[in-house]
């Protein structure tokens, strides 16, 4: 069993994902894969890549749901999901070798691949299904929050954010320190009522989701009908005279 860090800086790096803006385009999913397959740890392999049953490992996936709210027509919600870097991360405490660990410095949950035996217990313990066993290398892969980008002095400062955040065309993904109530991401969470995913699991995820804002439905009544143009003035063309006068 592995311990969570006893000493921390209080810094909790994570993602804030806006479900009101995510169009489910998979940009984050693929950009994550292309960054990470040549980056931290083993590549993200693809088994039977051109075959009948291609299976690859991904650190981030989009799940698409159809939901039917009360008294409203069905709608689609796109739900991107990757490791939530939980404060009480069950994937860490379950790890028999100490490969899975949570950093005290910034709260990122990582797998030390040199110690991973590919037993898969962590994936089983994660209630979110956020870890994937690489089908080719048989090593556990998970979101690193692009730990090889966010401090990397070989790339411009503005780019020192996770690849998924940098690439998101709908700008639905935000990165920052959720341990600092004054950070932009913390303010966004406060403003928009950011939520934990499955709080009942007691994992205290760092990542937050911003809920979709309320929709207008086809049966929403009209608040103010503009007056018809043709009332007092003898039909539309009569209105036209008075309107042209005013120009």
């Amino acid at each position, binding site marked *: 069993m592995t311990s969570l860090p006893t000493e921390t800086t209080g810094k909790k790096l994570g993602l804030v994902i806006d479900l009101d803006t995510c*169009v*489910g385009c998979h940009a984050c999913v693929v950009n994550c*894969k292309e960054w990470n397959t040549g980056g931290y740890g*083993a590549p993200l392999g693809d088994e039977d890549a051109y075959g009948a049953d291609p299976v690859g490992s991904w650190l981030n996936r989009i799940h698409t749901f*159809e939901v039917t709210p009360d008294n409203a027509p*069905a709608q689609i919600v796109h739900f991107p999901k990757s490791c939530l870097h939980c404060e009480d991360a069950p994937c860490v405490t379950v790890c028999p070798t100490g490969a899975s660990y949570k950093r005290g410095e910034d709260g990122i949950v990582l797998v030390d691949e040199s110690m991973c035996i590919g037993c898969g217990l962590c994936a089983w313990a994660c209630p979110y299904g956020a870890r994937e066993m690489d089908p080719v290398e048989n090593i556990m892969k998970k979101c690193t929050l692009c730990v090889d980008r966010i401090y990397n002095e070989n790339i411009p400062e503005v*780019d020192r954010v996770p690849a998924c955040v940098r690439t998101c065309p709908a700008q639905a993904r935000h990165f920052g320190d959720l341990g600092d109530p004054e950070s932009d991401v913390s303010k966004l969470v406060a403003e928009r009522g950011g939520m934990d995913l499955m709080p009942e699991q007691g994992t205290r995820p760092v990542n937050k989701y911003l809920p979709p804002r309320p929709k207008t439905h086809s049966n929403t009544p*009209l608040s103010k009908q503009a007056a018809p143009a043709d009332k007092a003035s003898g039909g539309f063309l009569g209105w036209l005279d008075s309107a*042209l006068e005013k120009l």
Partner: protein
Amino acid sequence: MGVHDRDLDRSPHVSDEIRKTTCYMCACRCGINVHIRKGEDGQPKVRYIEGNRDHPVNRGVLCAKGSAGIMQHYSPARLMKPMKRVGPRGKGEFQEIEWEEALSLATEWLGEIRSTDPRKLAFFTGRDQSQSMTGWWAQQFGTPNFAAHGGFCSVNMAAGGIYTFGGAFWEFGSPDWSKSELFMIFGVAEDHDSNPIKLGLAEMKRRGKKIVGVNPVRTGYNAIADEWVGITPGTDGLFILSLIHELLKMGKVDLDYLLRYTNAPWLVIDNPGGADHGLIARDKDGNILVADRKTMKAKKASDKKVKPALKGECKFARGKVARPVFELLANKYLSDEFSPENVTERTGVPADQIRRLANEIAEAAFEKEIVIEQPWTDVKGEKHDKMIGRPVSFHAMRGISAHSNGFQTCRALHLLQILVGSIDCPGGFRFKPPYPRPVHAQPKPHGGSVANTPLAGPPLGMPRGPEDLLFQEDGVTPQRIDRAYSWDAPLSAHGMMHMVISNAHARDPYPVDVLFMYMANMSWNSSMNSRGVMQMLEARDEDGEYVIPKIIYADAYNSEMVAYADLVLPDTTYLERHDCISLLDRPICEPDVMADSIRWPVVDPATQADGRDVRGFQSVLLDLGARLGLPGMTNEDGSAKYADYADYMANHERKPGVGPLAGWRGNGDSHGRGAPNPRQIDAYIENGGFFEAHIPENARYFKHANQHWQDWAVEMGLQDGPVENVFNLYSEAMRKFQLCAEGKAEPQPPESHRQRIIDAFDPLPVWYPTFEGTQISEEEYPYNALTQRPAAMYHSWGSQNAWLRQIHGSNPMYVPSNICDAEGLEDGDWALVSSYHGEIRVQVKRMKAVNANTMWTWNAIGKRSGAWNLDPDAPEAKKGFLLNHLINELLPPKGDGMRWSNSDPVTGQAAWFDLKVKIRKAPDQEGPTAPQFESQKKSRTAPVNVEYGKEWTK
């Protein structure tokens, strides 16, 4: 702090070099930073591709397709060498040959045609991004038979816009995202401006502004829209005209704007039965006339002192009478025919929702008016101290245009924008340079093919009226193989690529000798009736010769179309090539920025695989041009004028001082105009692959009437003098076609076409039911079926991509739950979907967030077994399917036996989305999807596993 974490390299090496070029993973043309890193073999490899933050299109972001570029670039489906067919067509049996043999053969085939009858070459270039060059090549060759894929994509959108207000959506304009109060988006494919639209939607959301999605399917952009209008396909025009009905009723139209910028006050001759009925009244010198509001006397429209009437009768000498356009318009759309209650059943949109949306449009436009304190001067010399905006904007693409009523629907949408005064104003729709560019500033189409002679002008263009149609000497038979610019489709400004193979096979209007295509998967997803097209390509005549004698095809990958080629010219990937995204073509400008860009070989193909021997198609075309001795491509001594496409990009001049690229001309210090600069491409590379020039503040809005814009556009080489642009609420050009059909003017269409021209060429936007819907039994085929492009896949290209195919490896038919209940269908069931033309077997997925009469699937996921070098049992082949098998390029026979093209009667745009179907549970509940085809032979064996980047990981 006392925090001790395990050691970690915080700054690992990323790449050896960043090379900035332009993406080609779809049609958006975003700027990309390609990280190059040395691979295990010592050769440069692509480590990572990200968006270029400085680029005007994507401003740093990159979509799923762009992010999967590595897998496209290293795809095992890449072609490696020229190939000559050795087996029968369609099998995929080839022999690799050297370039010299390939080019000699092509030169022999093409040279024979050019010296006898250049029309016998049909040259069609699919998803080509170099049409100003390929079209010029066709012109120099002397064949009118050239087009790219616009005719089966979105020509209605482009032509509807240009004929109405001298602009269009996407490449020619964009919503004013930072100022709009309300935004409405109709049927948009994800590959059309996808990153800019997502950035724009995000900006609207940040600003808390409302987004309305009008689409039968509530996915993608419609999933995040604040309001969804789940419209019935093909009825958008009716919905829009109902919005117009309501706006007129409320008097919510911008009369000042209409008087200044549109033909609303122009007088239309009212002379039923006369040859001038419906034409614009002009004086004897040809000046357009309006009526003075007080006296109703005719005055010149150009007279600044006149206050023109918008209603009433103007009497001329000899009893002639005319009325202002606006009166005709108001009377037409105020008719009860367009009341919300009367359109609700057909459109599937509740009347109250239509009424509320009309009110919201009016409120945004007139109660949230935007004022920018920016003085400007209009083209009439009037000075304005501010810019007033009507902040409501719209965007639309194939969803409204891929119907047989699409042209008029697009016009209706633009009419709506113009009536509320929201074209090129703050908060509305904004032109992108070089637009506005109305019809009279566009080229005309050119025919008149003669042996060994170039055409007098470009093959494609915008007809001004019936006089610009292209007929053979008999005055009826089309000049073009696709029958563009004939009575079948008079305003077919992008050609009709979807008719080429069918017509060439039927030898109607004449046979062709060589079919030369580029990047167009015509034997599969880019054709209607895919099986039929495959058979036409395989068809032999009584002598056993192929009916279409010779097929040359250029592609980078082993697509379905490769199998049908006699000669295959292997193209490079987008990271190995030169390209110019030119202002002469479909540029990448944004409303505030004139821009163009290049691609350049960020990696050398020879280093990217053993034995890789490919050439960029445009360089090959220039080589062929020189071998054929085409003017413009050959020096006086007969040698090639251009070494390759890069040479052409820098040194070709379309007119003195204006060439394919606008930036760094002359000595590198002049932009827009200037002598060719041999160092121009280096300058682009140094600047990140693109050029941009910012439009002056006083020229940013009202470009259709802004003197500062006109001056700047001339200075930058976008136009050579002032261009008048009066918005055509009423299209006199269309009325001229009607007059021909009514027998009042020449040339006249054959009897068979008259009524169709009269119905479709209404000079004011109209709605009529889509043709397929009216020509088959709606009782038998009660449902609509259509496709959407997924955000993570661009037409057929994506399936060879090891990453993208894991996202969209197969496609179910999404069927509304009410239809499932009626037909006893559950998730995963196999069902038979049929149209009047064919039947397919598909797997069903229930869905509720969709129009109740409309089923849909993802576009172009289904593959022919073995194509793209995928496993013959790949899910794309066994569980994926094409809807194309249900769609015919011809409509069902009419009573007289005549079969019309399944296209818009105005522009010839392929009417993909008119499809009507029925569905039933398949008697046997087993796959695979049907139809299935014999496997295409692979050109190479693909690896089993991929572990990209392993060489760089520890």
